[in-house]
């Protein structure tokens, strides 16, 4: 059976918010090392990989590996029944197809319990190769969310070009164009702050991405102060939000190509 207690229940709420727009149903794979999820959107353009390490829960117990097929929309609705400061406990027995959620408030005088029916989802687990990327950009996730939101008003795709000078997000549409240049500041003065943009670059890269997908990824911005973009020309882009100590939500997004090339 699975039993996982999360002191900060709102964390799971945010995580599900960050995934549910991309996929409708997904398998949560629970093992003794933690909970993971891998799901591709129906158009096969983006892939979302989630990992919650066992030590983000206190306590965490999973006797044998189990796969919980969950409708994310229903899950999200049930999680919204919890308060932001509630302590969340997830429970699933081996023989039942129910996931039990228990929300306990800080004063420990209100205990609510919800049960979610699990589904049998025939999903395959895909092996994603470890890839050395040419370029790694670390930036504040709120800044990333804002740029993506702003440029989405111009057109539906953005071109991200990274040089030593900085990272430039540019979009142009029928009515005009816009671009945002972020200069790497953290590396010069205060390398330790972590809230500024930093760039590691072995080769300049330029990639075009769908803003619609990026906008759904930015739902994960509340989870993490910083976001890491890893880019190599002509391969899927990896967008990584750290969750807690060692967990993550990673999105792979297939780029767009210029039809004339």
């Amino acid at each position: 059976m699975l039993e996982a207690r999360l002191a900060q229940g709102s964390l799971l709420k945010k995580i599900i918010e960050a995934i549910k727009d991309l996929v409708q149903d997904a398998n949560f794979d629970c093992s003794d090392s933690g909970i993971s999820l891998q799901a591709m959107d129906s158009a096969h353009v983006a892939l979302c990989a989630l990992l919650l390490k066992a030590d983000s829960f206190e306590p965490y117990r999973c006797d044998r590996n189990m796969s919980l097929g969950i409708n994310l929309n229903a899950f999200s609705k049930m999680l919204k029944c919890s308060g932001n400061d509630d302590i969340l406990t997830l429970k699933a027995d081996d023989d039942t197809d129910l996931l039990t959620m228990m929300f306990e408030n800080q004063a420990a005088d209100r205990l609510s319990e919800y049960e979610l029916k699990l589904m049998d989802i025939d999903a395959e687990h895909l092996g994603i190769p470890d890839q050395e990327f040419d370029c790694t950009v670390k930036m504040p996730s709120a800044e990333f969310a804002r740029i993506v939101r702003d440029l989405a008003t111009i057109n539906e795709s953005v071109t991200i070009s990274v040089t030593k000078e900085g990272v430039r997000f540019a979009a142009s549409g029928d009515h005009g164009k816009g671009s945002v240049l972020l200069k790497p500041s953290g590396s010069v003065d205060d390398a330790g702050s972590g809230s500024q943009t930093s760039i590691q670059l072995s080769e300049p890269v330029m990639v075009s991405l769908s803003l619609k997908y990026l906008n759904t990824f930015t739902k994960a911005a509340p989870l993490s102060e910083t976001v890491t973009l890893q880019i190599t020309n002509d391969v899927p882009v990896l967008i990584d939000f750290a969750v807690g100590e060692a967990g993550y939500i990673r999105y792979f997004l297939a780029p767009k190509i210029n039809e004339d090339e």
Partner: protein
Amino acid sequence: MVRITYQRRKRRHSISSPPAETRPRAEALFPTPAPAADASLSSSQTTTLPGSCPSTPTTKRPRALSTRTPGRPSTDARLRTAFKQLYLQFGQKDAGPFLCRDCGLSYQRGQTEDEMVHDKYHRSVVRGVKYPGYKSEVTISTFLPEQHVPEETNAKLSSDGSGLLRLRSTSPKKLFSALNPLSRPVGGGAKGQSSLARVVVISDSSSAFEKNKAREVLEIANTELGSAPFNDDLWETCKVYLSVSANGYVMGCVVAERIREAYLTRSSVSPSRRGSVNTADEHGSPKKRSTTSIADLNEANVFLSDHPVPSSCGISRVWVSPNFRRQGAASHMLEAVRLNFIYGLNIPPGHIAFSQPTALGAALARSFTKRDHFLVYVETCRLSSSPGP
């Protein structure tokens, strides 16, 4: 390396863009790593990417949608650049076009225009075409649909969202009402008038609205039957009969046309009796025809006699929406044809001819005429290459 800044513009594809199967699918994959020192890592990576080509990353594919010719000036190209979304290829099984279980349309998920076409088609197939009712409509008869549950749709409702998930309903009745959200339970005389389906006729004198609605239904019917679409001169020779359910959805259609002659079917098991089946034949064509065989769906051919007999009414198409099958709609429409097609004349069931019956169509024809052998005619009027008799 500094490249030009792209300017991109959303290009609108029309609905008549090429179907999903023919559209090339560009995929983005991680290139397999160069043969580096750690052989174990690279071998594990190649196994996790079974669909990938080991030598080259296939990010760029032929661009069928591109309409521009090579060799244009680059300034022009910069202004008109269109971007094309690539797809992830991590070796997933369900890559490629997606086949909808309910409507049978294969389309590319994620392509907006494909999804729009599918949505429209899916709605018309699954829920049927709405028939709002018209002031000028001519109702020939009403009938109480027999309450059967369509077996084709039994327990095949699948969630359209993922394609991976199959919801199975144990109660077929529940499923039936799920497919037809507006359907009310039929039967039980208390409902009275509201549960009666009706047969309406649409002919040359009908209003343009009715004709358009008939065309909409015929489009679906022709797609499902795999037959040729009709021309504009449809209304000169044909009448279309629609059966409309109590809640205002088209259950099916029959296209009837004027013909001159038809051929009686004969048993394929006794070819020695060829020509002896049909003896009364004064109006037959002087030229001796060889036996025509029309293949039906069961591969059991329908053999026709050599000599035509006069017949005045031919059924060109019979189609009933899958949700409304086994409710007697087709029989009632044929009955309406019999009574209405020629003014003031009741055509005997045995004198109605059918064109190219499918297996189901032949079964209908047999049950309608209550004979083993029925009349079949060769549809010539709207076919471009008509073999003259």
